């Protein structure tokens, strides 16, 4: 199949399905979702193969070239992000299908729970928008897709319908919109200066002047807000923790990665030559703070989903370390590490949220003390959580380990001991909260808890995802080679002060 078809398909298939599902209000809505998932898998596979074979692909959508048309562009990192989206998306789809059908069958629950009819279109739109974002070749398209993602994500949180979820969703929406508008203001400034929104063209012409710096600052800060980098993470824990079971994983795994991906694109492909290393360093410092703050808060939580959500705050911090480390001679390591960590975190975190969702479904709460001894009843789920935890802690063999190894290698290679220490410390703190859950769940101090039955798919989907994380720590050559394709030029410059 052609790469162009694959790219178009990745965006259009879920979109079309969303429309069909919404309009026809079919009863077999889950089947549509699964069908889309299968198609997406094939498309992603084909696109990845094509990129591996023949390098980055650029396609003008609808035949118009930039600046008028909407060009699509796929290189190694977009392919990796697409793989990530597909992996998490497919498993989430299966999980959601089981979750909602089980809800429908259970009369006690269906009244208070979100309707299946709204979930599917929203999720398919989100999926489409994510794919579109990863394939975007201009900064305005990035804005539009970001907004689409935000709106569908917020709507998905709102599905939960409880007051807590609504408050979280509203807060998230305000934050996200504010971030988008900051970004858009930056886009406006950039366009007025350089007359283009294609980031390829911008990369060629960008100059170090005040307006560019203003634009860069506005865009990046806006995106930081959407990515929930400390200290702008205030909206995240509640939003992710209160979302319905299949949604939390998507939010933490994919939605955050979207805005992070935009930052990566802008920073390394556009602003890298004009931004001083110290600006990148500032982001790294914030990242380090995020790691510590998020981990500590995660440890302090009493609700498992909140714990996992705060863990996301910490993991996002890891992603931002790359900006301070991406300079010669170790820059490539850091870049690969961050990209791979995005992938690893998406899978691991989605798996963790799915497990939390399943157990919450069974027990009726995600309060840790209600989970006492649950691991004796549901060993597979806790095992899955542990596997995901392995990656979050950065322990081998897992994708998280490979990523953290690369980051650590870069940090030490630059003599950045404080960063290295934070990376390691973050892993340890992660161990504290992961094992806090596992420890409680394996406790035999209480009689074995009685739980509601849960569909088999809600056990298997997270396990598959968690296994993927482990496999990602073993089969690494291909993904890392993928990241070489269209990798940004990491300029040779000195390490920040």
């Amino acid at each position, binding site marked *: 199949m052609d790469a162009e078809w694959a790219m178009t398909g990745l965006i259009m298939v879920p979109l079309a399905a969303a429309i069909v599902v919404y309009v026809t209000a079919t009863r077999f809505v889950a089947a549509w979702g699964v069908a889309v998932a299968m198609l997406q898998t094939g498309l992603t596979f084909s696109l990845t193969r094509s990129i591996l074979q023949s390098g980055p692909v650029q396609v003008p959508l609808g035949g118009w070239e930039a600046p008028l048309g909407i060009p699509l562009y796929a290189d190694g990192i977009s392919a990796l992000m697409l793989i990530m989206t597909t992996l998490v998306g497919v498993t989430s789809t299966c999980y959601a299908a089981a979750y909602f059908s089980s809800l429908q069958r259970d009369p006690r629950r269906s009244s208070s729970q979100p309707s299946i009819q709204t979930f599917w279109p929203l999720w398919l739109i989100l999926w489409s928008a994510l794919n579109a974002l990863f394939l975007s070749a201009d900064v305005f398209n990035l804005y539009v897709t970001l907004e689409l993602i935000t709106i569908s994500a917020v709507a998905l949180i709102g599905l939960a319908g409880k007051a807590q979820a609504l408050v979280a969703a509203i807060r998230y929406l305000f934050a996200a919109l504010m971030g988008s508008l900051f970004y858009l203001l930056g886009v406006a400034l950039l366009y007025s200066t350089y007359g283009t929104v294609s980031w390829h063209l911008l990369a060629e012409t960008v100059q170090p002047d005040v307006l560019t710096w203003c634009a860069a600052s506005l865009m*990046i*800060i806006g995106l930081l807000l959407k990515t929930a980098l400390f200290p*702008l993470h205030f909206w995240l824990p509640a939003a992710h923790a209160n979302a319905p079971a299949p949604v939390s994983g998507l939010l933490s795994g994919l939605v955050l990665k979207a805005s992070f991906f935009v930052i990566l694109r802008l920073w390394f492909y556009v602003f890298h030559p004009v931004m001083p290393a110290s600006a990148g360093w*500032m982001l790294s410092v914030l990242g380090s703070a995020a790691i510590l703050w998020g981990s500590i808060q995660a440890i302090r939580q009493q609700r498992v989903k909140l714990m996992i959500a705060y863990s996301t705050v910490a993991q996002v911090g890891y992603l931002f370390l790359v900006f301070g480390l991406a300079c010669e001679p170790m820059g490539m390591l850091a870049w690969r590490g961050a990209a791979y960590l995005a992938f690893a975190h998406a899978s691991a975190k989605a798996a963790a949220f799915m497990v939390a969702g399943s157990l919450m479904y069974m027990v009726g709460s995600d309060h840790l003390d209600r989970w006492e001894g649950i691991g004796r009843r549901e060993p597979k789920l806790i095992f899955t959580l542990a596997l995901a935890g392995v990656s979050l802690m950065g322990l081998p063999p897992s994708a998280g380990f490979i990523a953290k190894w690369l980051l650590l290698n870069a940090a030490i290679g630059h003599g950045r001991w404080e960063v290295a220490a934070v990376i390691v410390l973050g892993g340890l703190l992660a161990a504290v909260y992961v094992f806090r859950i596992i420890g409680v769940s394996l406790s035999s101090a209480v009689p074995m808890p009685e739980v509601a039955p849960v569909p088999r798919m809600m056990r298997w989907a997270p396990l598959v995802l968690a296994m993927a994380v482990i496999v990602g720590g073993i089969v690494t050559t291909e993904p890392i080679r993928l990241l070489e394709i269209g990798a940004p030029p990491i300029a040779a410059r000195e390490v920040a002060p």
Partner: protein
Amino acid sequence: MNQILLWTMLVVPLLLAAVVVTRADSPILARLIAWAAFPGVLLALVPPFQIEVPWLLLDSRLGVDAVGRVFLGVTAALWLAAGWYASAYLANDARRHVFQFFFLLTMAGNLGVTVAQDGASFLAFFTLMSLAAYGLIIHDHRAASTRAGRVYLMMTIGGEMLLFMGLVMAFHETGTLVFSDLSSKLALSPLRDVVLGLLLAGFGIKLGVMPLHGWLPMAHPAAPTPASAVLSGAMIKTGLLGCLRVLPLGMIALPTWSDICLVLGLLTCLLAALIGMTQRNPKAVLAYSSVSQMGLVTVCLGAALVKPQAWPVIGSALLVWVVHHGVAKAALFFGVGIAGTRMPSATARYLITAGLVLTALSLAGLPGTMGFAAKTALKYSTANLESWNEALAWLLPLTSVTTTLLVSRYLWLVWPGRHAGHGRLSPGMVIPWGGLSMTVVAGFFVMRWQTLVNPAWTTLAPSDLWIAVWPILIAVALAGTVILVARILPTNVTVMLAAFRIPEGDLVIPLIATIYRLRRRRYRVTAVQLPQRSRRLQQALEETVVPRLVQWLDRMTRSLENDLAAGLLLVLLAVAMLLISMT
């Protein structure tokens, strides 16, 4: 053939021990156990040989050499006798198999020691013997036995460690563990004195040389009689064998070591005899006698160390000592058991009394017994030790006096018929005892045909006779005086005197008490206070540090994670980023 005999000797007791564990109780087994040491006797008769056993331990050498042969012969014979004796002595003991188990293990170790030709296997057999003997010592589980066992174990382990250190260093210095090379190379090594110090101390514990003798007077009385016999007769000799194996005897003079040996030897001999005389348990008396006799052996060693050229003479003198003391002491211990039984007839009593007196006096050097040969050999060995001549001239006869007094004390305590006996006198006990008692005399005459033994020692020249006899006479006179005086003195004085007793194990007793007190104290410190301290730390953490931290985090969370703060931070960050970019 010799090899087969050697392996039979080593393995048979171990196999039997393994069978005994299952509590099999058959007459055949009992017979076998009694005969278990027999291959050892046979092996002592074969010509010297040596085999290499590379797979055993650290490249072992086993074999019989001229010196080892004598040790082996005595040891095997004593174990054989003890085996017979034990089968009768313990016939009615319900925990017979326990005794037999340890008996066999100890035997295997003891026989093994005599054929071990390298340090590692020597140490292995030595340890097997020492540890298994613990089971013999505490066999009857009386409080005294248990305490004796504990002291014995402590000192054994201590000795073990000294030997370990010594051998490690010896190996480092010489590069070999084979005794024949080791001793000659050790003579030339710079660390010789340290190594010898460690090894001699280690062997000295087994040998019971003062001040390392503490365990001996406690353990020997505690063990059942057949065990005491081999403990005293055979096992403590392994200490001597060890010394012979490692000391560069006949090669160089080591005057310092010689002085140490002589002083300690003489001290041991005299003091042990004096302390022994205060004992009331005949076995304790015998134990002190052993200590005392080993003092004389040490004197011989000291002589050999100062006069290497005289080593052939001294060496054979030592062997004579080994044979003599082994046989006589075992016989005396057996005698304790026999004298305590109900005598079937007056004839039997007279015969037994005669046997006891004869053996006892042999120890004192009565002419016509092996003791005489030993005494004479000692005199020959210590002749012409320049600086020591004068001292030895009156000290050695003095030791004869004390020895005689000591055996008199023994005879006094066991004199058949003085106490109402209990238990039947069984032939199983009498025959080994009688055999050994007769050997005391017969051995003397056998020695005359032995090329090993200097003919001068076994000639009964009148001058020698006199020299041998007068100390005995003096001692007998003294003993008589003491008895008379005791009769004359008012009763309350006798009682007072009798109350004066040195406990078995003399010096060791206060030492052990101190150790225990210290340990109990230390236990209180570590076991009780440490947890308390850590609990206090934990409490401090939980009650102040953690809550404060949590409070601070709560405050931080409140002030950071809200809409307003986020909005302000957003602006702040944007401005910061811009400023950073522009600088």
